[in-house]
């Protein structure tokens, strides 16, 4: 169909309508997070912010500092109490600490996953490891049983190991969850590299570790990126493990701290302002990854679903 028939107008009309529908919730959240309270909470929604403000971002990011300020101000000067209170009435939660916590867990999961899966994939492909096929079956076994059905024994295990309430516990659980797809992807990646390359390096007297880092990994970058992006996706987007295994405020993960904002708050406009700002903050890292590593993202996320 080369000619411009009316079909094509329909085709693009439908597609662009869908694009608008898909983008709208994100766009709406983004502009809501910049609207002044009076514009945010109104019976006549505006489709772009007339007055930009960063106050919600300021509140959720600098929550602890503002809280301290508020506490000292109200203690010091009772006379000016009313005014200061209206200026610094804080609701909900700060997200700075949770953001850092989530970043630590995600970074830890990515690094550990890459190390474990690279070595695992290498040993199960290139090297003459005994029981190779059995080990491989063992490693991909978890795809048959989603981790969500093991939350109770996992909680017990972490408790016995003293790893509840710790970032390490979450990192280890996420890494274990990444094993099937990670080892599978790395195995595929190494499989496609000709074995002669390794033999040449061996003749030159390189150690196995040297061969991995300088010969094999540079050739396995697409596989590596897929594993990395998926590890980021799994750990950053996790809710249930973070909710169950972490219970002290200083170790809270980002997604959980947003729940506290959604639940609390006596001021309606501050609650929704903070929640939309918080949603944007939690979406930002993942959208940056998506923008630059889109094809790996699609492969990783659907690969995990399909469990090839």
């Amino acid at each position, binding site marked *: 169909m080369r000619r411009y028939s009316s079909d094509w107008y329909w085709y693009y009309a*439908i597609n662009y309508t869908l694009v608008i529908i898909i983008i709208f*919730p994100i766009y709406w959240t983004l502009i809501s997070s910049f609207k002044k309270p009076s514009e945010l909470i109104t019976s006549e929604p505006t489709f772009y912010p007339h007055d930009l403000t960063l106050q919600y971002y300021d509140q959720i990011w600098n929550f602890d500092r503002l809280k301290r300020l508020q506490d000292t101000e109200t203690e010091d000067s009772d006379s000016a109490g009313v005014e200061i209170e209206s200026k610094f009435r804080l609701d909900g939660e700060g997200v700075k600490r949770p953001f850092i916590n989530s970043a630590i867990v995600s970074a830890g999961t990515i690094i550990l996953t890459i190390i474990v899966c690279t*070595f695992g994939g290498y040993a199960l492909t290139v090297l003459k*490891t005994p029981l190779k096929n059995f080990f491989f079956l063992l490693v991909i076994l978890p795809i048959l049983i989603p981790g969500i059905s093991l939350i109770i024994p996992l909680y017990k295990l972490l408790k016995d190991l003293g790893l509840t309430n710790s970032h390490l516990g979450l990192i280890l659980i996420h*890494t274990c969850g990444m094993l099937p797809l990670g080892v599978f992807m790395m195995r595929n990646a190494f499989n496609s590299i000709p074995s002669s390359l390794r033999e040449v390096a061996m003749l030159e007297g390189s150690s196995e570790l040297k061969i991995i880092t300088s010969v094999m990994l540079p050739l396995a970058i697409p596989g590596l990126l897929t594993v990395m992006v998926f590890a980021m996706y799994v750990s950053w987007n996790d809710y249930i493990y973070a909710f169950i295994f972490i219970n002290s405020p200083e170790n809270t993960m980002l997604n959980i701290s947003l729940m506290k904002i959604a639940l609390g708050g006596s001021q309606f406009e501050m609650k929704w302002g903070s929640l939309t700002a918080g949603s944007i903050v939690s979406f930002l890292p993942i959208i940056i990854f998506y923008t630059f590593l889109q094809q790996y993202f699609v492969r990783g996320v659907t690969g995990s679903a*399909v469990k090839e």
Partner: protein
Amino acid sequence: MSRLRKEQLVGLLMVSPALILLAVFFLYPLVNSFYMSFHKWPLFGKPKWVGLDNYIFMFQDERFWESLKFTFVYTLTVTPMLFIVALGTALLCNAKAWGTTFFRSIYFLPVVMSFATASYVWLWLYSEMYGVIIYALEFFGFGGEKKNLNVWKTGTSSMWAVNAMVTWKFSGIQMIILIAGLQAIRDDYYEASKLMGASRWQTIWNVTLPLLRPSIALALILSIAGSIQAYEQFVIMTRGGPSNSTKTLVMHTVDMGFDYFKLGPAASLGVIIMIILFVLTVIQLRLFRKNY
């Protein structure tokens, strides 16, 4: 030490972190979930063997049946919604036209957002009085004169509200699976169909869909397995309410374990979820094996 021997040792050493992680954080909890489900777990002291008591307790619990029923209703309603949108967008993206890569990356965009974030975003869209969806619905005459539309008022409306969010958030994954299936269909079929004078809808109905059957089955199984694990969207958006009418199986398990501290029954619930998902995954893998 011979070279082979050395290589074997290095191999074992390299695979050992993966195996240790697997043994501690997968195999042990897996075995333990059965062990826990046959024992009573008092807050203090040793666990006591109680046989099937935990399962009996669980099966006699009305909340279990309610959550099971709700999980199935949710699965049965959200699966067709997801599938229709996924199939539509997959067909659109498979056309030989300018811009399909762009459209595909936009349709996939909500998938990368976490379920939690998507729930918060839609919570705001549905927010009472000021949510933009509520505003739009009222504009079109829903909710009557008083303008007090609240989607969270009844269990049914809450579920449909969450379904809409999930469709927005998740159809992208199924779209990718269906696109992969569509791309595997050879052009000959379409050409033959064209030669026979079939209209576009006839081609879709009689050529595309039958050939796409394996991918369709895969997408449907995925959606069913995913819906049975539903947790975040309901915890965040409905909190199981109103009056526990939107409580899913996983939510019930978490409540049982961490609100009522009944670890035994909670473990037995975990075993039930595990069996359901195991059966679904086996079907899924068989489908995948057979067709790819």
